[in-house]
């Protein structure tokens, strides 16, 4: 036994020595900037920038093939330190964003049209008639978005809808790309009122499929300030400017429009965050 242990350790030693030699022999000279930038990046290798990892982005930034604020996760502070490394001016970005699911059709509110039995993954489920929800636009509830989130910001609720924690979400965009129904969007955290539906079906069809879907009654359009909400192909869509006041949520007969707490609860805070965004 002892002999075996000694032999194995010796083997391991030789192997690691060999590996070290190989690593040295094949080492590539790196631009010191690349390493510095890589140090500034979050190091999560989340892929949110569209590249395989942080080091790849660092290389591109150093070579001038990517912008200093190309990392969607790092936000402003990272962008600023990278701009310092690169010696360029950084103008400052927009407001902080978070992902939000534009569907409220959970197991109690949305109906299904068949019993799905297959791979527990939304994109796979969507291969069979687009999914089992009677609403062709709705969330399939199998949690593909939760699976791809590198930051563990998404959890599936007991009723089968993803719940995104804005404090963990870095707006890396991965869930947006992974969702086969394309119902996750990035929204500024300062925005409070959201229209949680993606269905372009006509009102009668929506009512049949879901008790919280937009039926295009246009009440919200009338209640909200001019230009805040527009009807697009049977769906109320927020334009972003001007903001929708909280009062509009109350007029929606389907409870599709809701005040969503994205971590900035009081309107005063929202103003503060906006100001901070503008100042930088």
């Amino acid at each position, binding site marked *: 036994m002892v002999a075996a242990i000694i032999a194995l350790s010796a083997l391991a030693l030789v192997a690691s020595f060999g590996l070290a030699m190989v690593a040295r022999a094949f080492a590539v000279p790196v631009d010191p900037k690349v390493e510095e930038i890589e140090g500034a990046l979050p190091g999560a290798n989340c892929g949110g920038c569209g590249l395989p990892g942080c080091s790849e982005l660092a290389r591109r930034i150093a070579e001038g093939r990517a912008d200093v604020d190309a990392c969607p996760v790092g936000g402003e502070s990272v962008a600023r330190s990278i701009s310092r490394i690169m010696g360029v001016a950084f103008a400052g970005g927009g407001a902080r964003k978070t992902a939000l699911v534009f569907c409220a059709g959970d197991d109690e509110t949305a109906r299904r*049209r068949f019993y799905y039995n*297959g791979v527990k993954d939304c994109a796979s489920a969507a291969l069979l008639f*687009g999914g089992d929800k009677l609403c062709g636009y709705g969330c399939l509830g199998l949690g593909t978005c939760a699976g791809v989130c590198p930051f563990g910001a998404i959890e599936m609720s007991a009723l089968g809808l993803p719940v995104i924690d804005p404090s963990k979400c870095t707006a890396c965009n991965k869930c947006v790309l992974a969702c086969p129904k394309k119902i996750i969007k990035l929204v500024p955290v300062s925005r409070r009122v959201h229209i949680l539906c993606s269905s372009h079906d006509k009102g009668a069809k929506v009512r049949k499929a879901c008790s919280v879907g937009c039926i295009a009654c246009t009440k919200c359009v009338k209640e909200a300030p001019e230009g805040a909400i527009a009807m697009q192909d049977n769906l109320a869509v927020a334009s972003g400017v001007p903001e929708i006041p909280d009062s509009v949520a109350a007029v929606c007969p389907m409870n599709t429009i809701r005040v969503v707490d994205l971590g900035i609860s009081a309107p005063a805070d929202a103003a503060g965050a906006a100001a901070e965004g503008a100042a930088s």
Partner: protein
Amino acid sequence: MKSGTFFGGVHPRYEKDLAGGRPIETMPLPARLVVPFAQNLGAAPKPVVKKGDEVKRGQLIAEPQGFVSVPLHAPTSGVVQAIDVFPHPVGADLPAVVIVPDGKDEWAPGLNVERDAGDLGADALRGVIRDAGLVGMGGAAFPTHVKLSPPKDKPIDVLVLNGAECEPYLTADHRLMAERPAEIVEGASWFAKALGVENVIVAVEKNKPDAIAAMRPAAEARGYAVRALDVVYPQGAERQLIFALTGRRVPAGGLPMDVGVLVQNVGTCYAAFEAVRRNRPLTERVVCVTGRGVANPKNVLARIGTTFGDAIAFCGGLREDAGKIIGGGPMMGVAQYSLDAPVTKGTSGIVVLTRREAVQYAGDPCIRCGRCLRACPMLLNPSVLSVYAERLRFDETAAHHVLDCIECGCCAYVCPSRRPMVHHFRRAKAEIRKKQARAV
């Protein structure tokens, strides 16, 4: 390696007795027909009718878009009630034209007339076959005229009539061979003429002795051979069939014509006979309505556009415990959520399984038993593929040849962990194709 068969495969419970003994019955016209535009592989034809139009049987209602596309014809005379989205048996909701029959079933002028056709040349034959809207009727629905136009450097020397019908439950081809052998063989002779091929083989699985007996005299009268094949699924899959008959291996990623073979389903041959000799476009087909979930399984001659609900009603309706409606056979067919899905040119059967008969996928971890490796007729490693697909590592599935999977379902059929193997592979293929499309 036994001769007359291929590697892998499985022996499912065939259940062909359910409908196998039932002669083909012609189904009366239903109250409405739902005719989807996408009925062929390739580009769907474009509608040329609108709501309120009157149509005659065989009248063009959608014209082909490009070479790999075929025209679509009204299955009976009547009025176009609507053009709307309907569940389509391929597994998606797609646009279709709804026709309300007027009950007269009048043919459009010039159609449904006998012709000699002996003087038609190869090009003329291809034209007739294309204008009749012929596609592969075994399920894939590939335009027939495209198959009949091989490139110059890929000469065809063997034509195979696929009467294997290896899918469990289905008996549509079986009945057609037993009842209309002369017409099938004549239809095949037009294909042979269009291709300039002498060597024609009729391939039938041994479990259909009456079909073999009926086909033999008709085929031999024209010098065609009839080959009785071992009963093993998927004997009727093109690559496996070609290998079993000729020993030729279709290259991975290639087509049968790469080894000089063309395979045509016997139903397609029958449709060719109708098109060439009777000048009838494809407006009806034999559909096997079967399974323990239907009261009275039958083989029916139904119009294209007949909804599954109407066809099942003609066969006595659903039983209490019907749990799964399949367009096609239980190994490769597509489960339907609605009885509004219509019979299309590629619908060889409607199989209704009871809840008990239908598999319940569990997706437990692979226990690496290796059963799927032994079952896979493409010699893939479904176990590894499914594990990679499950972890969304689609590049790895491509490296392990997932694109060569023929989705025969043998692996899932034998997996003790009840893993949804084919579902995994379809997902992986979709992702890989998406990526390839982006790269171009």
